[in-house]
């Protein structure tokens, strides 16, 4: 997977449009779905995905192997671009958990989504081991990218304890992901 991505990225360095298109095809739905989960806004999601690929196309050499796996790097860039766009549109506060739960889902279909589906299954399973509050912490922190103060307000906890809650929730998640990996979950 990573090898293929890196190869495409190298071709993009040589201005090969077909390579960018191939990379786009591979990640369009994952990135779109990710930003949609963060923003609940289709228009913004499209703008963010466009911005990410525009950066890849115009700012050559952004990625190199020292930045880790290509897909992880791409998702990080996407997340920060989304945070930036969400802030600009001030839609970051529109969040509600009900909205997230009522989100319409579509079934993953194509082969290229297989890995995503497997990953998703495993992480969802791990998430289900967390209590409601821990799940909410992760959503507010990672997907909503709220500030420490906003998280404290949402959870009605002291500001100084926010970081500890986040770390604890993430550690639990990690533990359960490891457990399911060892059980041969994928």
């Amino acid at each position: 997977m990573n090898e293929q991505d890196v190869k495409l990225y190298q071709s993009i360095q040589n201005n090969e449009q077909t390579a960018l298109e191939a990379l786009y095809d591979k990640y369009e739905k994952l990135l779109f779905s990710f930003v949609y989960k963060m923003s609940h806004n289709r228009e913004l999601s499209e703008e963010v995905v466009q911005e990410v690929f525009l950066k890849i196309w115009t700012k050559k050499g952004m990625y190199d192997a020292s930045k880790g796996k290509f897909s992880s790097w791409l998702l990080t860039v996407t997340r920060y671009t989304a945070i930036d766009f969400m802030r600009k549109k001030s839609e970051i506060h529109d969040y509600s958990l009900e909205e997230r739960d009522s989100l319409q889902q579509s079934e993953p279909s194509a082969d290229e989504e297989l890995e995503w589906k497997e990953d998703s299954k495993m992480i969802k399973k791990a998430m289900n081991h967390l209590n409601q509050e821990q799940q909410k912490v992760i959503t507010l922190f990672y997907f909503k990218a709220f500030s420490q103060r906003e998280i404290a307000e949402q959870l009605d906890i002291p500001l100084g304890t926010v970081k500890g809650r986040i770390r604890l929730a993430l550690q639990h998640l990690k533990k359960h992901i490891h457990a399911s990996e060892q059980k041969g979950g994928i």
Partner: protein
Amino acid sequence: MSRQCEHLIDYFNDQLSDVEKRQFEEHLRSCHSCQEELKELESATADLPFISEPVVPNEGMKDRVLSNIFGSEADNADNKKQDHAKEPAVMKPRKKRKNSVFVQNGLAAALVLSLIGNIYLMNQSPDTATEQELNIDKIINTVTLEDTEVMDAAGRASIVQNGDEKVLVVQTDNLKEIEEEQAYQVWLLEGEKPYRAGTFVPNANGEGAVAFSLSELEQSNVNWDTIAITLEPQPDNETPQGGDIILAAGIEG
């Protein structure tokens, strides 16, 4: 642990002001525990995007995004592709094409005035003319010429295989009567570059026709894609000097 360490979460979520961000990055360089915690946050969240429920991207999103990225370059390539795909089937007239677009292009002086009737078989020796009698002419391509707003004319253009050579045959009706020096001129356009492809004057019934050997254009590798007829002030103009296009259609050899 300094006060700066409390900014880790806001740093990770890009919620700091520029000044705060710079200060924190300064701090990060020397704070081992913040470095560790940041790494931990990054690795612990790396798989979280995959939890996103698959959502079908917006309709037409790929085309919009890629054409925005590749800019006008891609637009042009796309249009060209479409033109080529469409042309043999649809044969749309290019009504908006005005004389001015091809006046600017110098036309090779190679093409000389060709009056109706004397062009047909003009490059043929008596031998091939004899042989040609045994050939059966075949239509390779035929299009209906569409009138522009200038006059309510009608016409048809065919490319006919006649032995070894191709001949463009144009027939038109309902043409306006012309003044003394004027003549109707057929042009084949390669992009916006015009090549003369026969001149004619209509009869009293407003009918006109041209047969034009395409050998010379084919030898020069001209890839025309459009045929147009104009009314020219003189019959021997090398480039269109006259008024608007009377009839036009997409046509390929």
